[in-house]
């Protein structure tokens, strides 16, 4: 089973060091999406879905599901139509309208090849990000994706 990046909303303090680390690995362009409100600065990682909507929506086959189950974007095939960002059900692919590019998480392939973890997980100041297999996450109930913080927002009051 392939490993994925998980976010524990209870621990995240919104410091954005994951975005800074990502930018340093990828030619000063952060590939992370962020929730776009002033108060919340939580990172939105690509989930690398089993049946990705972005690959189906892409007209030029720039988005591809690779053999190792990661979804990658070829920057030479991409025409910048932003279909993928519209199709993505999680709002993870956020186009950069000024630079006319569509950044997309590649799980830091260069570091994975050396047996290391992605940059955002390595630098996370609060320990909210983890790089683990899906089954581990389901077993560990403390790290559920919908956390107390999110549910408390739903109820309408903070803890």
């Amino acid at each position: 089973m392939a490993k994925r990046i998980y976010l524990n909303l209870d621990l995240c303090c919104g410091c954005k060091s994951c975005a800074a680390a990502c930018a340093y690995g990828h030619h000063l362009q952060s590939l992370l999406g962020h929730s776009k409100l002033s108060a919340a600065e939580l990172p939105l990682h690509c989930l690398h879905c089993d049946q990705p909507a972005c690959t189906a929506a892409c007209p030029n086959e720039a988005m591809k599901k690779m053999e190792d189950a990661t979804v990658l974007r070829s920057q030479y095939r991409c025409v910048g139509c932003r279909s993928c960002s519209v199709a993505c059900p999680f709002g993870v692919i956020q186009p950069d309208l000024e630079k006319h590019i569509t950044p997309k998480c590649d799980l830091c392939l260069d570091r994975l090849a050396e047996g290391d973890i992605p940059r955002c997980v390595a630098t996370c100041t609060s320990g909210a990000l983890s790089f683990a297999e899906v089954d581990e996450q389901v077993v560990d109930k403390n790290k559920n994706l919908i956390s107390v913080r999110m549910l408390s927002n739903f109820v309408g009051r903070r803890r």
Partner: protein
Amino acid sequence: MALDYDKSDPVNLGALCPRGHYNIEMVNHPGRLTEPQIGKRKVSWEEAVAFIRQELKLFNKEEIGCLVSCLLSNESALAAARLAQALGIKNILTAGAAADLEAYEGNKWEVPGANLATLESLEQSEALLVVGDILSRAPVLSKRLNKVKYGKRGNKIIVIDPNSTHTSWFATNHLVCRPGTEAVVLAALAGELPYPAAENISGVPAVKLQQAAEAFRAATAGTVIYVPQSKKQRSDLAVYYAKKLAAASDNKRYLVYYLFGNTLGVNTIIDREAPDHPTYHELLAKIDRGEIKSLLMFGEDISAGHAELQKRFRMLKFVVFAGHFESESPAIYDNSIILPLATQFEGGGSYLLADGMIASCQPVVPGAGSETLAKICGLLAYINVGSQDGAECVGRGLISKIKNEGEALAELKTIEPAESTPGKPITYFGNNHLVSNFFWYQVNKGG
């Protein structure tokens, strides 16, 4: 140059905050200054030093002022103080954030039995009392905050802040006071002020104050963290009562988290080396009266982006400062000289940290122009290390009159809450793509 993560580091545990990441850009930035400038004209180091010597001879010793930045290392601050002594300059003082300097004034008042917190005691504490937004100041502490919050059932994180911030997300008790009344809440928690009186001033319900005070008192180990911020919150009084709170029992400690790293060290050194130095406002008044005609800034130009200070500094005849980039200032001061500033990676030295420990840093990369710098150490060796603007100092009066307990209590009663702006409720996940796909969002927002 490249960044990597050192998991064995005791302070940050291998995590870097965004400021740490982006600092590295400064070293090889194409717009960075590498040569001294007189006005807009680029000159060599020899010419610059000769120019400074020649200009300084024109003034009396009393007409020269020195500002030492709070980001200098201990060695550089000591050298700056000694240099001022050698030149006979008495107008030497530190320039930092106004709230930092105010908190340092409070730190001077002695409270027997108050101990500084360390990293270990922070991890072991069962109750944290945080004043201000520590996580936006130092995200690296968030791992330890999480350890307190989730480490043991019943642990408390009490946050005193008028705003809802990143830190208040982690709070078990969030005391929402009126802006500027943090010192009153701390005094009430320390038992110096009755709860109803504190409620009148700060607006925090007496029941909540009592709950928080009892929770903090009951914890076997606790830490008070104070973050000076540039609001009108009387940082000196707040630090005094934070110390009182820590002195109440042996296992309670306190920590003041200054904005500029070496505020404690530089202030202590300048106080020791030049005991009768003027305050910041006395120096500004001297500039206004025309008694000070030239200014040496050990560190960056503190008036950058501060129109009021620039207006005052334009009356000066000669200004020396350092900087990373070409600023607007050379256009303002025709006769000023700007020297290239070393980044944090190039200048080594020792720093006095907030927990009272001394950390020494080694230079990572060879400094720009470090060989030529060695030539001028006779006069200006230590002008190459940096600072930020302490510009906001102007708007605030730094009061350091209080010496005993009775005066502190009398001062406390004069605190009036600043005008509170009606805050709009913060919707943390409002129109997000991610959230709008969740079922409960559709239930809640109707679509």
